[in-house]
């Protein structure tokens, strides 16, 4: 018997952890050889409701329903004792709910780089990882880098940890960027995807543009991501040079990107720049590669595992390093376009949800 924690499905937008949970839940709904049940916190949720949530791909309409709880119930201690609990998120867990428990660990950024997080998040995450290791039976990490961190910093038993890379799956859409943004077509563009927050290091790209505005003659730069925290967006937009670039139309800011728009933006981009200091996985990099879009990517954390030989790497602390990586990439785009796009496809194809779910299934079955 398996209990899957599905609270993340109550999120409005299915990106990041809700997206992973969605793939995980969908997979297990199809497994007829296991008794699979679903929980949100301490309550068991009807399978039918979970199926509806999966079908609708948003928790927007279910939040009130969940809190009223007409179709949820507690589960018996006896069932809990003989079941495996599967947790796809990082919510604090102070007590063991099930006989054996598996936790998916996304990253240790709260512990390793507390300066990138609000104080409370940093403190909670830092402590919870350390604490949870004494409770859980197996940690599935979304990259080898995260697994190494878990072993090194939290003293995890290597035998009780494994790696499962999240996958990439696009939903068919023929809409173009121009239709979705309701705007006139713009030239060849570079995509920078990520929230304006300290860890994502988006300001490094702005610094490159200030140092080397000539590149804007060749490419438009599209920064896609919400404003976030840490004053990064405000600082960038408050800079007169950057403000001028935005007004010129050669730099575009797109604050909200849904899956359809992301797909359209990705597949039509010349390349992606991903300057993050530290990642547990790096889904945007895998997504770009899966569409044959080359990436200039920071070497931080797990990113080299995702981009592999197809990545054009740079030091996220160095604008010179970024400039060099972008220089190599644009040169290759000019002279070896087909070759580097093929390499990107090959690398992006390595990340499938089926492989991810199969790896987790293996862990769960071993614990059973």
């Amino acid at each position: 018997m398996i209990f899957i924690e599905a609270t993340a499905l109550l999120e409005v937008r299915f990106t990041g952890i809700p997206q992973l949970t969605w793939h995980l839940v969908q997979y297990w709904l199809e497994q007829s050889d296991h008794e699979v049940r679903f929980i949100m916190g301490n309550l068991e949720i009807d399978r039918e409701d979970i199926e509806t949530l999966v079908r609708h791909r948003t928790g927007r309409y279910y939040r009130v329903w969940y809190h009223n709880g007409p179709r949820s119930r507690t589960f018996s201690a006896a069932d809990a004792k003989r079941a495996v609990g599967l947790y796809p998120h990082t919510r604090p867990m102070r007590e063991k709910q099930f006989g054996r428990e598996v936790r998916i660990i996304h990253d240790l950024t709260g512990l390793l780089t507390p300066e990138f997080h609000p104080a409370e998040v940093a403190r909670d995450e830092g402590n919870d990882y350390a604490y949870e290791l004494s409770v859980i039976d197996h940690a599935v990490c979304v990259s080898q880098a995260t697994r190494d961190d878990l072993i090194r910093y939290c003293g995890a038993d290597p035998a009780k940890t494994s790696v499962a890379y999240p996958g990439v799956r696009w939903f068919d859409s023929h809409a173009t960027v121009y239709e979705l943004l309701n705007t006139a077509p713009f030239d060849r563009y570079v995509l920078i995807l990520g929230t304006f927050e300290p860890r994502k290091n988006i300001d490094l790209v702005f610094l490159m543009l200030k140092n080397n505005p000539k590149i804007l003659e060749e490419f438009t730069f599209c920064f896609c991501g919400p404003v976030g925290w840490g004053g990064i967006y405000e600082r960038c937009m408050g800079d007169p040079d950057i403000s001028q670039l935005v007004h010129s139309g050669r730099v575009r800011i797109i604050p909200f990107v849904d899956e359809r728009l992301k797909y359209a933006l990705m597949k039509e981009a010349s390349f992606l720049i991903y300057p993050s200091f530290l990642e547990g996985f790096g889904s945007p990099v895998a997504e770009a590669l899966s569409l044959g879009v080359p990436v200039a990517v920071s070497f931080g954390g797990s990113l080299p595992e995702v981009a592999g030989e197809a990545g054009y790497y740079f030091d996220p602390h160095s604008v010179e390093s970024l400039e060099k990586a972008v220089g190599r990439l644009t040169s290759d785009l000019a002279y070896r376009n087909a070759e580097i796009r093929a390499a990107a496809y090959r690398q992006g194809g390595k990340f499938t949800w089926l492989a991810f779910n199969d790896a987790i299934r293996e862990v769960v079955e071993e614990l059973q």
Partner: protein
Amino acid sequence: MHRDEAASVGAQHSSLSIAGGRYVTACERLGVRTIPVRRPEIYGSEVSRRFLAAEKDSLIHLAVGDYASLRVLKSAYNIACVAWEYDAISSTTFDRESPWKNQLWTLGLFDEVWVGASFVKEAFQRQGLPKVHVVPPPVPECPEFDQTKPKIEEIIGRSPCAPLLFDFTNWDQSRRLLTENTVEFVRFFGSVAAAGRPKVYLTIVNPGDHRKNIEASMLGFLRFVQVHPNSLLVIKMVAERDRTLTDVVWNTLRVQLERLFQRSLLRNDAVVFVHDFLEEKRLLQLVRSADFYLSTSFAEGANLPVLEAMACGTNVISPIHTAMADYLTDDNCIPCRSRKVAVDGETVTGYRIGAVSRNEVTSEDVADALAKSAALPPRELERRRRNALATIAGRYDIGGVARSIESRFEEICDRLTVAAEA
């Protein structure tokens, strides 16, 4: 090499920051290539390692910083280089505070730990840390040791200073008085020296560090100066560069100064506070310009200023305990009495430890030591000065520490080679 300068206490003159730079100098003298590393925690793969060094190179990561900033560099041999002053270390395990507050846990992440003194090594080993080595931060050589001392007013003449001519009996006026009395050091010194050049006693302290026992320094000196009026205590404060002297004194030393004034030891221009940014070379010249260097700390993990004073040919007045027990003797300094007492909460609150002792130094102890310094004939002072230099040479200077580092690196590289072959 990973130095977290921003995170260390006391900004520009922080011992950790200075120590980090000196380890670099020592490594470079050995021909070891040093690479500054920011955020070692982000290096998680072969790809990132290639940004630092070739595959064949042995990578040793020396992390110099305070506990909260220490991170390991994966694929390297990790050494934590830390200062510590007490005979215990925090071992509180995971609670609702950050795990980095557990210093034992943090140090346990590293392959080995370097400390500045045997006392610290013993304290760490008592707590179960296995690989602790004494590799003190080096002290720069002082080529002008035998030359005439520079004049203090030429070194810090333009620095703002405020003599202890303000009081706290009238709170409304005292802050204003403090600001009004702040003048350039050369102007202040000119007025003091008009009656004859005073003997200069120097102390360099972070005034917010309770451990430095600045109150005993001042009180002891004020007693001493009643008998030896032609003496001046220069308190060079180590604080953030952007703070004013008034701010540092008012907000950091007020409680201690109030206690002094309550003891009726009021208003004396024999004590002067200086607050200015001095680059390392100038700071060393300041140390060299003084007749005596005064330290009254309860505990030290290295005490770089004392080592620097010894290297610069300035007679040291200091208790001989904790780190100083490694290098100070009755023959190379003017010892100050101290005694072990159970520690008070205020001293160790920030370290989250208890059941430790400190070495109490009272103002009477300081006054007696100062009196001894004044009574010693010049020839004896010169003898102790030379003995101090001999202590530094070969052990604490760049060459000496480079040899200690070389010996550690050889062992580490042998181990890394064996591991790679295995």
